[in-house]
């Protein structure tokens, strides 16, 4: 493909699927308060735990070694990624009372690692997931401000909350927070951090803590760290609309992404902010190949490696609350009722509140309807959680162009399924196609995370 013969993607007709979602004129196709930029930014989400990362291949790298992180971040910077994003979980996942053995587990502290990556990178943003429930706001705010200063204005904070007392067993206050209070608490926490970053004096007596402090560090080149948030629930979306700069909950289909954009725009405007103040970079898994057929095969191969028979049984055991090791992974879902009372289910974000009775019945029906075995069902569930983009390089590029033109998303927060080489084909094959199509930057827009996400200056 040479530049002279490039089709003008901006003027190419939208697909029927995309056209059906348009409700306004070209400049506001989805919502009167929202103008698409037509541009995408990518983040890389190094999960470090869970089944998304394949550990079984010869090329599966060390999950803790510095070299793995350094290699991945260099690839990301070569691909002009806006952000390098680290997850966090404050207690080792357990399954039936024992540390979960089947998935990748154990990772370095996010901010400590990012402080080191700041020294060997120039431009990429450095985003740490940090919990508002089990941190002290002044300490956490200072650590973020340190990272922001060390990196010359590239720090970001993915704000998460936890309410379970099980995680609290690692911390001074234990499980002190009610589920319903978690966003109220998180918002108060973020406000304290922002006051500190702005050099203000804090004299806070709230429901959960009393804090006296004085912000005394200088502002970084981007002013203060960029705030990320994943909450997909209405309360989470409202929290993001009031507080966050970037939302990254996964939405794999165009329709779901469009619906989410409208919801976030409405809530952002209702919160008194400009619709452009909140960017949407859904969490995504990307599986690419030269042709559609190869990509289909590859995504099946990836799923097989992510979810083995043992993990499939373990997934069901989380919800059934009982030993299912006698069931055949290639057979139908267990026809036994869950044992709701048994303690020691696998713990981790999102798992705690499943209503076992209801859910297991629904799953049995769903699998029977689709004619799926335990293994097929588990692999399907894992895929649907991940917002997977799969296909040939060209097909995925074209699809992302539609997302960008509609303004459904502002980019993706990509979880590589292989460490450290999992970004290679994205950087080598997808990004050049997005650049040719004019929806992805060829050079960094600036030196701060805020600039590279296209966020308005503070």
């Amino acid at each position, binding site marked *: 493909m040479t530049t002279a013969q490039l089709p003008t993607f901006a003027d190419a007709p939208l697909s029927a699927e995309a056209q059906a979602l348009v409700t306004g004129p070209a400049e506001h196709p989805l919502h009167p308060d929202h103008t698409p930029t037509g541009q995408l930014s990518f983040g890389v989400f190094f999960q470090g735990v869970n089944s998304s990362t394949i550990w*079984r291949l010869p090329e599966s790298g060390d*999950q*803790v*070694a*510095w070299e793995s992180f*350094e290699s991945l971040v260099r690839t990301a910077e070569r691909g002009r990624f806006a952000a390098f994003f680290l997850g966090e*979980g*404050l*207690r*080792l996942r357990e399954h*039936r*009372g*024992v*540390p979960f*053995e*089947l*998935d*990748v*587990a*154990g*990772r*370095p*502290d996010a*901010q*400590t*690692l990012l*402080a*080191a*990556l*700041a*020294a*060997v990178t120039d431009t990429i943003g450095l985003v740490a997931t940090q919990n508002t429930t*089990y*941190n*002290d706001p*002044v*300490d956490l705010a*200072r*650590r973020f401000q*340190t*990272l922001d*200063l*060390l990196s010359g204005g590239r720090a970001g904070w993915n704000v998460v909350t936890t309410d379970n007392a099980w995680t609290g*067993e*690692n*911390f*001074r206050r234990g499980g002190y927070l009610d589920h319903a209070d978690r966003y109220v608490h998180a918002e108060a926490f973020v406000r304290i951090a922002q006051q500190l970053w702005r050099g203000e004096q804090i004299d806070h007596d709230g429901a959960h*803590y*009393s*804090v*006296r*402090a*004085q912000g*005394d*560090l*200088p502002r970084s080149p981007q002013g203060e760290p960029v705030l990320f948030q994943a909450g997909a629930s209405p309360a989470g979306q409202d929290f993001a609309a009031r507080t966050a700069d970037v939302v990254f909950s996964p939405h794999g289909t165009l329709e779901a992404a469009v619906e989410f954009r409208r919801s976030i725009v409405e809530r952002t405007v209702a919160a008194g902010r400009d619709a452009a103040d909140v960017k949407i970079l859904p969490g995504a898994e990307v599986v690419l190949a030269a042709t559609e057929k190869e990509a289909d095969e590859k995504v099946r191969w990836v799923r097989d490696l992510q979810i*083995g028979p*043992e*993990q499939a049984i373990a997934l069901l055991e989380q919800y059934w609350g009982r030993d299912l090791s006698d069931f055949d992974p290639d057979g139908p879902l267990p026809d036994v009722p869950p044992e709701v009372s048994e303690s*020691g289910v696998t713990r981790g974000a999102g798992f705690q509140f499943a209503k076992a009775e209801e859910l297991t019945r629904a799953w049995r029906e769903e699998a029977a309807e689709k004619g799926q075995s335990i293994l097929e069902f588990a692999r399907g569930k894992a895929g649907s959680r991940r917002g997977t983009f799969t296909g040939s390089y060209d097909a995925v590029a074209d699809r992302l162009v539609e997302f960008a033109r509609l303004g459904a998303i502002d980019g993706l927060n990509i979880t590589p399924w292989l460490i450290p080489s999992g970004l290679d084909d994205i950087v080598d094959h997808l990004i050049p196609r997005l650049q040719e199509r004019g929806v992805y930057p060829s050079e960094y827009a600036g030196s701060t995370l805020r600039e590279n996400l296209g966020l308005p200056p503070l």
Partner: protein
Amino acid sequence: MSTTTTTATTATTGPTSTAGTTGTGTTGRTGPTGSAGSASTQADTAGAQDGPVRTLPVLAVDLVADPALLAPLAELARGLEDSGIGALTLSDGGLHPIHAASYLAPITRSVALLPRTDAVYVEPFHLATQLMSLDHISHGRAGWLLTAETDPAVPATVGRSTLGFEATAREAADVLEASRLVWDSWAEDAVVRDNERGVYVDASRLQYADFEGETFSVRGPAITPRSPQGLIPVLVADTDRGAVGERVATELADGRVLDLDLSTGARPETVLDLVETALAATDGPVVRLVRLVGLDLEADPLGTVAELSAALRERGLIAPVPQNGASLRDQLGLPLPTFTLDPARRGDHARLSSKDHA
């Protein structure tokens, strides 16, 4: 280990906790039952000169992690590394000392990195995780210069009131013990990547921390795999000895840091004599680090350090320049502690007991 007169630099007979140490019983916790050769956490104290080989202290320079230091920080650290020192300590000047140390890890090769940071008004689990992460990132060059915060403004930032001297000392000891239990919660080979069984991490090679202190508890295991040094060396500077209390300074920590304040304008000969006298002392904790504080960054800091390190080395008062890739334990002559499983805390305990009942 109930004695404070362990000899030599190989105090490997102590289990991870102070189980067996007299007069520590505030926790009521059953300590690990590791045998000799388990994780060494006890300080070897007086009488070190009587032992077989006496490892000389490592020369360190203290940098205050101040925002004003940001611009020259990387170049200064590299320059100091080339001036013959073995360690950098990072003191709190506004920037978080652990992050400042971590920032320096990938751009230095041989110097140990020891943040000087509070053990009291902190979340012990976070602190332990951050320090073991620094150890991973620096390939085993991490240390902890343990201090106990005395500034009354600090407890107010975490909604606590200022602890008295005794309570501060007890809390610092608890946080140190809890940290070591977290550090020692994964075996070296816990990540097995067993394709046949589909097992990534072997729960029987993990153990819970199960620390119950006076004011907090930590369940564990660590959310980070075991770090290269296993247990990160913990040292107490002379400046901090009063605040942290004698138990941490003399029994629990791995040794003492002799502080030499260069801002007083002392002549090099005086400095050398001070070091010689301190090393000759036969009581108190072993001097592990000789730390230059108050270095004037405006007046040829690298030249000053190079001159002092050469003179100290010529008099045989400090350890040789570290090799690239040496861990802090290597530099200090501390043996690498090995994981010793405490059956009562092992990770798969729940599975074993359910099988027993089945």
